């Protein structure tokens, strides 16, 4: 049992799963932003397009997570049709470690970005002309998800299988 748990294949798949967990952050973030958006639209339905744009911003973490999960699956041969290739424990652990940054940072930055986006939506509710600034505030948070994506990607890319 323990052997199969620490096999390279399992560790690699666990890594893909953890990367995909970044979606938790996006789900919460988009949810929080959506609540704020609904509030603004209830006052002025014409702002729907603007606030929808803002609501979409915290959604990217989930995509980044999916991206790394997908790359892991391609790397271990799950999506190529050839079947999963054999991995040593070291390789599996490497892939697992590579997946951690986007998985963890994705969750927390998604939540934080959701809050910033919600505040930005409130801003748009009061001053529609300030949409760009509201977006920028949310995008400042996303920087760290982008950096985590980059770290995950570069680590993953350097693991030889």
């Amino acid at each position, binding site marked *: 049992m323990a052997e199969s748990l620490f096999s390279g294949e399992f560790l690699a798949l666990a890594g893909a799963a953890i990367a995909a967990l970044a979606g938790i952050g996006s789900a919460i973030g988009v949810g929080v932003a959506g609540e704020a958006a609904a509030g603004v639209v209830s006052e002025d339905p014409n702002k729907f397009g603007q606030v929808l744009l803002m609501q979409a911003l915290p959604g990217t973490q989930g*995509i*980044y997570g999916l*991206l790394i999960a*997908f*790359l892991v699956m391609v790397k271990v041969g799950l999506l190529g049709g050839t079947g999963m290739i054999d991995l040593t424990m070291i390789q599996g652990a490497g892939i697992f470690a590579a997946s951690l940054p986007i998985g963890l940072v994705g969750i927390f930055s998604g939540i934080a970005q959701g809050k910033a986006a919600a505040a930005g939506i409130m801003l748009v509710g009061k001053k529609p002309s300030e949409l760009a600034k509201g*977006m920028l505030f949310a*995008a400042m948070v996303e920087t760290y998800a*982008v950096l985590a994506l980059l770290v995950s990607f570069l680590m993953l890319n350097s693991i030889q299988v």
Partner: protein
Amino acid sequence: MAVIEMQKLTVIGLNSGRTPFIHELMHLGVVEINSQEGVVNDEEWMSDIFRTSNSADVSRLEADISRVSTALEAINRYDKGKKPLFHTREEIGRGKFTDYMNRTKTETEMNVETAVMSYKQIADGQNEINRLKGIIAGLRPWESMDLPLQTKETKYSVVILGTVNIKTKFEELLQAVLGKAPSAVVQQVSADVQQIYISIICLKEERDQAFEALREFAFNPVSFTEHYGPPREVMKQYETQIEEIQQGINEKEALLAELSGAKKQIEFLYDSLSMHRDRAKIVGNMLSTEMVFYFDGWMPKKAQPEVEALLKEFEFYYEINEPESDEEIPVCLQNGGFSTPFEAVTNMYSLPSRHDIDPTKILAPFYFIFFGLMLSDAAYGIIITVACWILLKKFKLEGMTYRMIKMFSFCGISTFFWGVIFGGWFGDFFTVAGKTLFNVDFVIKPIWFDPLSEPMKLLIFSLILGGIHLFVGMGIRAYMYIKEGHPLDALLDIGLWYILLIGLVLFGLGSSVGPAMVTVGKGMSIVGAAGILLTGGRSKKGILGKVTGGLGSLYGITSYLSDVLSYSRLLALGLATGVVAKVINTLGSLAGGGLKGAIVLLIAFVVGTIFNIAINALGAFVHSCRLQYVEFFGKFYTGGGRPFVPFERKTKYIKILK
């Protein structure tokens, strides 16, 4: 660069010519009129000069406008016609518009009246329906009772109706009432989740006893004095009434739907009224005496001939002055050709203040490159450009929307370019499709390299681009220092940083070129760092201040590091587009070959591509903006300029041609 030069205009004219003059000034639409609030404070003048205000006129017009806008709201709600994607203004000549208004005004006003009345009647009707529905809901529990609701008593007996909580045991209540008032007939009429509805009939003299018994059960008496007849009939009556009202509402709604044919005239009326209002309002910004009026304001230098011609025609006195150095001048941007649409980016941040230069021309090429690099898919680029181009052709867009769409049409070209460079055509769609459907190996080769297999190369390229962007920003700062007459600041605050940063890069990476480079880099770094350490605190007072100032400046190197690293998003977002496209294509290919496989692939492709373009174009837009606003503007730009708001036709539905 391209902040339009402004001039100050001062005019004194005869009151008799004021109204036609304001008309013509609005037609020109190039002069901003300053508010004269608080200008005349001198006691001596106060008695003769007054701020003309026709607030009565203005508020009358405001009321008219709000009526017309209610009419439009009413008509729009019941207008079944398709709404266009973008709101555009209809173009019309000046004479034609006046003609049209004269011809249709009476009829249009009648239509407005009808629309507003109908809208109000619909709202009233709906309120009435809600009220009746509330009454019906209140009567429903008593539906099975045959007694007319208005019956409170007969000669010898009284009728008591009321409710108790659902948790009350009816048996106990019955016994308690019978114990006190033996003549009572207690009936449970109905019950719902909260309450039991009870009717009690007893002799008049036992009434108080019955109530006494009921009190212990928290009995809540109800009465229906305003209704006549048994509940069932009363409800039926009200239902018929609701139907009648509903019919009335339907008729009014049909009427409003019919009025949508006259919508255009009403919109014209709206604009005509709001122009009228603006003309009345602007008079409040002028000063008057018995005979003359005065105003001052701003106009672009290039508008001088037409304004002068107008003033000469009216024979008004005027002065045109260059702005004084400490005055706040309204800002209007004008850039040529390629950079015009990128004014949207500058606008969204903040207009340049008096001491800034217009950054649009410089940020335009960078924005163009960054956006493309972050999306980097040739096919997506074509789609974006073509879609924007169609929008531009189909709709007569204006202002900010026009600039944005135009900007995206440019950015699409950049996206196409980078896509070709990195070999992205719908991600790897053609490879996947070739393999799954036709079993052929078909690869579109990138012109430069494939970022998915050589990400480090693109990362370094991104950081170099970022370095250039930052250096340009710092260069502008230096240019501004020199222009303001502080060349020493330019040298010490920017020049030394140039030396230090270039030195560090050479020191770190120069070894690949030659060992001499490393030495040069080392020397430059030391010179730069020492210079910054010594001069960074030069504006501070005291030795301690100078030392900490120098250290603080040198510590600023961390911000350069984070600034440069920030450009790694160019790579990350570019990868995101490519990989998401790949995910879509892979998902599509899972169904295998054959017709079924082709259909699955096509569906996944279409849905996925739309999703990918939408989400990643948004990302590219936001992050290109961020790189400009935070990293680039941080180096030299403050913003905070006041936009130039000329007195012009601010119309919503029509555009009167000049």
